[in-house]
């Protein structure tokens, strides 16, 4: 187990921050570093990460795979696999900069890929194909880990303080219209590079504060649908559940959020008949998708940003709006650091998703409902 203790800290939990520009005005990486670093007390230096959307405009149509390798052998094997299944548009080592505390890291590469459609598959779903590739690499190739696989987005994460990780990955050099960030205080799982947040699948990226006590149930549920939970951490199930419910089962995003943090029976029982039927059905069918335990999560994708709290709000979560920008973070101070005078600041209700979509995003009916 790689437990790297950099500084002595008292226990306080994780922190997360996210900024979205609904008009897709690019936000410099420096902003999100400042925001997350303001909550440095919430982490212990054992993990931090960022996800940015809109950072690869030149490869907007290609799946951007960020891959960590333990060694060159793993890279060789992985690249063989990739070449077999994808057209490689471009690939390179992810530019990094050694910092005072981060002297060593896994090999970090990125690939811009387009799937090679297999000839014998009847109904080819590109996303399923990519998802399977990610699962295969992570599951089967020792020492290789795809930690980002969406289009025009990328996750950057590692072991270290958020400011150091930002510096390491040279985040300030990127510009994105949606950023999420995370600082980590790992306990249950070793503080390894892959274990840092965000967790991603396709363009879904999840940062998470808390612990999913229902992990075992969620994991075995997801396994029925071909997801492999290999990362020894609970957060990955969130990304997969969102992918399953929203992308594959086509649930409206808000409904998916209600499946993850469903209302209590005593509240459901008081609803009017139609809604009661709906919520009862959600809990009946998606009971295994319920995220139980304390959590606050930010889910980002190419359509926008969603923040969600567990149903009894055991983790802090604040949201704010300023012009076209929506901020979400564990602490209000992280927002104020980068947006001193927001139009509105509020603490969302437990289990009620905060959804901010890009104005030009057309996700169809599924994303009809949003607030902010």
């Amino acid at each position, binding site marked *: 187990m790689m437990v790297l203790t950099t500084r002595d800290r008292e226990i306080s939990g994780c922190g997360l921050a996210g900024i979205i520009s609904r008009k897709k005005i690019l936000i410099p990486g420096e902003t999100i570093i400042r925001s997350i670093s303001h909550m440095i007390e919430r982490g212990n230096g054992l993990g931090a990460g960022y996800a940015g959307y809109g950072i690869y405009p030149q490869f907007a149509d290609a799946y951007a795979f960020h891959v960590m390798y333990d060694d060159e052998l793993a890279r060789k094997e992985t690249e063989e696999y990739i070449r077999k299944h994808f057209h490689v548009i471009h690939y390179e080592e992810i530019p990094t900069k050694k910092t005072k505390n981060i002297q060593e890291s896994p090999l970090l590469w990125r690939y811009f890929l387009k799937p090679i459609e297999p000839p014998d598959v009847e109904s080819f779903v590109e996303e399923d194909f990519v998802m399977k590739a990610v699962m295969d690499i992570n599951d089967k190739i020792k020492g290789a880990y795809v930690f980002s696989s969406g289009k025009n987005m990328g996750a950057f994460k590692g072991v270290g303080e958020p400011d150091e990780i930002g510096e390491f990955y040279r985040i300030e050099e990127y510009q994105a219209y949606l950023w999420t960030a995370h600082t980590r205080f790992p306990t249950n799982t070793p503080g390894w590079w892959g274990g840092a947040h965000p967790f991603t699948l396709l363009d879904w990226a999840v940062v998470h504060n808390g612990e999913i006590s229902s992990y075992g149930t969620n994991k075995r549920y997801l396994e029925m649908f071909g997801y492999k939970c290999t990362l020894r951490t609970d957060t990955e199930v969130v990304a997969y559940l969102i992918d399953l419910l929203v992308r594959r089962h086509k649930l409206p995003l808000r409904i998916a959020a209600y499946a993850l943090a469903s209302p209590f029976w005593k509240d459901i029982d008081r609803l009017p008949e139609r809604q009661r039927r*709906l919520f009862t059905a959600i809990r009946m069918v998606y009971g295994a998708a319920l995220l139980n335990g304390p959590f606050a999560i930010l889910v980002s994708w190419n359509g926008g940003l969603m923040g969600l709290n567990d149903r*009894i709000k055991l983790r802090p979560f604040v949201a704010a709006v300023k012009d076209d920008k929506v901020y979400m973070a564990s602490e209000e101070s992280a927002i104020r650091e980068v947006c001193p005078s927001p139009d509105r600041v509020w603490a969302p209700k437990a289990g009620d998703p905060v959804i901010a979509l890009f104005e030009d995003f057309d996700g169809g009916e599924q994303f009809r409902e949003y607030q902010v």
Partner: protein
Amino acid sequence: MLYKSLSSFPVFELERDYDKCIVCGCCVQQCTYDATYYLPYAKKVITDEHKCVGCKRCEAMCPTGAIKVRAVSNEFKHNAYWDARTIRDIYKQADQGGVILTGGGNDRRFRVYWDHLLIDACQVTNPSIDPLREPMELRTFLGRKPDALKIEYDENGEPDLKTELYPNLVAEVPVIFAPMSYGALNLNMHKAMAAAADAMGTYWNTGEGSLHRDLYKYGHCTIVQVASGRFGVSAEYLKVAAAVEIKIGQGAKPGIGGHLPGEKVDEEISKTRMIPVGSDALSPAPHHDIYSIEDLRQLIYAIKEATNYEKPVSVKIAAVHNVAAIASGIARAGADIIVLDGFRGGTGASPAIVRDYVGIPVEIAIAVVDQRLRDEGIRNWVSIIAAGGIRNSADVIKAIALGADGVYIGTAALLAVGCTLCHKCYTGKCAWGITTNDPYIANRLNPEIAAERLINLLKGWAHEMKEMLGLMGINAIESLKGNRLRLRAVGLTKEEMDILGVLPAGEGL
């Protein structure tokens, strides 16, 4: 009797403190086995220990605590292999040449997997939840569920459910009273279970002896059984119930049929089972219309047709070695619920040899069935009810964590109302008034008191389950379902852990 057959070595001895005996006669009146009687001239009550079955009724009822019933101290010469019971059984069969009957559940020393599984708790990183103040939900849906929901927005922008749901049972506590037939039990016990299930928002199961007319009012919380004997199975019986269960097998006696002796078939049982008074009620081992899985499908759909597809259909099987494959077949045959009855399950009467040595533990059965159904991607199609030896709320939690949706409790329910597990159910003389049909002895079981006790039991278990959910940091039972990471094994072999799908104690994650 001067001459005693070898089999009549007493099993129990009754110690009576004559300094305390006030000769009130309560023990004499309460003993249904005629083991205790009064000596008028000596003005003493004495006991014929050969007849004592160790039910402890006299001990419980003695107002001065003058009686203690104990297992005999002068057993046979100690022998770890030829134990006393084995010896007695051989004597008995040598005497009578029959099948040795017994009641209750398996009492042999097989490994109890429940006791090798420990429950994980939260500390700091994922906080435990206080169930006294925080909400804690046990509501459980039993029945087939669609794999996914289709939800669309209507013209008003309201989300609208487009998926047709299958009928489900909704249990507020995932603990259901196990099928125990009217005949094996008396009506008072049925009344008590029905009332308790009603009060607790859960269900009870009639067993194969049909449903007494007086209990039709409890139809909404009743699971009715259709067994090979088809006793009292009518369209009304099926329609009044909340769910219909096809009984294929029983954990206590897999592959063995039921047999209610004619002398137990009195007027009321006759009316309920719709057979003549005094006639044997035989349930053959197989349903004679089910000799293959497609026949089961035929019966399942016959019941669904007869109930207009409004009720879930459950199939109860004994846990046997290829239970996973069977369960998969049952799920694919259209059942909504599968009941897995482990070898610890109780019975009113069974050949002892079958009860003791046939079947597999329900823990194993749940694990393999849940895994198999998940592997096949059909876990949503059926709910799993675990039955057979669920003793306490921890067993319930463990069963659900292994993959069950709910549990049946039979023996525990009987214990709650006074059963002392003397295993003499088949004699019809149950001194606690539970398994007897002698109307006067049955008076001993006041349905009102029994229902209260059952309610208390369920309430206690529900509280404990909430505590345990809370300590796991979970506030809804669905997050426990199949959550095997919440269990850790102690003292199990690698193979057993693999089958159960649990990690050894001490391993993280």
